[in-house]
């Protein structure tokens, strides 16, 4: 049986493949959920026929994973005979070199004639985080500004503030990132996610967002992108035991006072 591929574009032998990814727990781990319908053809003209179907569903960066996997019969046919359709076992196979994840299902069919043509699958893969990063959400009230469509909306710098003798404090960056995608409007706010990768371990750093050029408009009268402030100022220290900081959230405001 050929290997099916839900991860390729277009998918090969997989209908409606879908995938979500998120972080959960403390320290955070990455959970990936995969589902789809594997499309193949296993036929019998009398005796029981067994085979193995492998579906490439995605990739992980870590080699330390936990998983669940299930498959359900989704398409069968028979031409007026005794029959058997079976998904006898399911498993997840990790390629230690590439991080590729495959769902493996052992299936069987019997009849004169019978065909097993599809199964639907669902897999959850929980893996350790191997990158260092800081991530969060930046939100702002609808009356503060409106996205113009230019992306990214925000730049985010991670670093330390240095104050030269007699000078003004300035950020010495060690890593930078941007907001991801378009902002979502809900509950009276706009919200967008950001993350900064490759943040060094063991040092307390400040996280400082800023508006990216003309990505926002419709500021209140007298205000512009440089009038914005991000609360609350945050400092974050990553460690080998906690190499990822999630939920470092900000709200963009227009500070009150003379402009």
């Amino acid at each position, binding site marked *: 049986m050929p290997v099916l591929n839900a991860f390729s574009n277009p998918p090969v032998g997989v209908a409606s493949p879908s995938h*979500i990814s998120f972080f959960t727990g403390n320290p955070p781990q990455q959970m990936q959920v995969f589902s789809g319908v594997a499309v193949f053809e296993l036929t019998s003209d009398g005796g029981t026929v067994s085979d193995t179907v492998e579906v490439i569903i995605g990739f992980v960066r870590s080699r330390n994973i936990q998983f669940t996997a299930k498959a359900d019969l989704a398409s069968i046919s028979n031409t007026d005979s005794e029959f058997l359709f079976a998904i006898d076992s399911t498993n997840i196979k990790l390629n230690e070199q590439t991080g590729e994840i495959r769902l493996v299902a052992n299936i069987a069919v019997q009849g004169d004639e019978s065909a097993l043509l599809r199964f639907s699958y669902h897999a959850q893969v929980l893996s350790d985080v191997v990158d260092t990063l800081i*991530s969060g959400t930046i939100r702002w009230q609808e009356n503060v500004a409106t996205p113009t469509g230019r992306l990214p909306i925000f730049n985010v710098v991670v670093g330390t503030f240095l104050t030269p003798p007699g000078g003004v404090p300035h950020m010495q960056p060690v890593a930078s990132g941007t907001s991801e995608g378009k902002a979502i409007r809900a509950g009276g706010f706009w919200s967008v996610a950001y993350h900064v990768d490759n943040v060094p371990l063991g040092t307390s750093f400040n996280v400082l967002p800023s508006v990216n050029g003309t990505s926002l408009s419709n500021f209140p009268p007298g205000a512009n992108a440089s009038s914005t402030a991000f609360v609350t100022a945050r400092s974050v220290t990553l460690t080998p035991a906690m190499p990822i900081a999630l939920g470092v959230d900000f709200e963009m405001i227009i500070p009150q006072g003379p402009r």
Partner: protein
Amino acid sequence: MSYDDFQYQTGGNSEGQITSWSSVELPVRALDSPANLYVRLTGIADALRGDPAWDPDRTQRGILSITSDFILDIDDVLIDSCANAGFARIDHDDSSGDGGEFGMALDDVPHVEISAGRCSMRVHVAFSGDSDIKTLSFSADLLIYRPSLVRPGT
């Protein structure tokens, strides 16, 4: 492929059309979206109703829509989803003489949405011969942005 032959709506875990209903919610974080909630729904839904008319020479294809009760917040935003469906109860009757050949399929799950606190999913189904998909098991994994869970600066 056209799925115009029939359409069934299954609505409401409290109305008996969805049984073995269960759901869990988990606060989460994502890198590429402001998603802050994971919701997983599972159940067994009524599929084709009664004894569907069949034609020995034709495969019939249609749409089954499954809609949950009000289990989400009104202003939740669906960021992404995974959905899955499989046979739970199927039936084949060969007493009619010419209905011995049969086929049944859940072809794909092309659409998931949330609206006004309810989750809906659409399943493309097909059957041939005197066969019937009575119920199907389903699950939906939802990645959601819930504004009320955001607490900047904490």
